[in-house]
């Protein structure tokens, strides 16, 4: 079966940058943050972010709809909102399906 592996975090990404590129831990962490920050800023500007071989972060605008408080059953309007979804590339989907 699939062996259990831990959760990858910013710190792990920085650790790999440190090991493979030789920058200090502090510099490596700032570099990783820089990648994330620039993707986040593009999304906040309303741009989709498309990374070939990996996937696309797609923004979708949802219209207002009627929801229900699951505890009380009271109907409440859910305001229109923008949500982010991720569409993995075919390459990433295949790697995950194969498990390698």
């Amino acid at each position, binding site marked *: 079966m699939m062996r259990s592996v831990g959760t990858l975090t*910013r710190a792990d990404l920085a650790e790999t940058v440190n090991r493979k590129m030789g920058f200090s831990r502090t510099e490596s962490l700032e570099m990783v943050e*820089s990648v994330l920050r620039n993707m986040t800023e593009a999304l906040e500007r309303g741009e989709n972010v498309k990374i070939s071989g990996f996937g696309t972060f797609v923004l979708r605008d949802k219209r207002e709809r009627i929801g229900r408080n699951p505890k009380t059953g009271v109907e409440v309007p859910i305001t229109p909102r923008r949500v982010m979804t991720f569409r993995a590339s075919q390459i990433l989907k295949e790697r995950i399906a194969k498990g390698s």
Partner: protein
Amino acid sequence: MIRSELLQAVARDNPDLRAEEIDQLVSIFFDEISSRLAEGGRVELRGFGAFSTRERDARKGRNPRTGEAVSVPSKRVPYFKPGKEIRRSLNDGD
């Protein structure tokens, strides 16, 4: 934004890095995430979101061209859940 535009944006933030270094940084970033998912692990980037994989059950599908029934085996698929902070910041402003 596409990968080359991400490289330019990261380069502006890091004027001391060479173009090849920025390229390597961005490659490491997405390769590490992909590899962890392929191994069946999880990736958690606080504020941005979390990547994981889910097992999708086998199902009966149909060949869209011939209409013939085929069985689609179960498989692992990627899943992404956006973080609280980005969900909020996508809806501030405009």
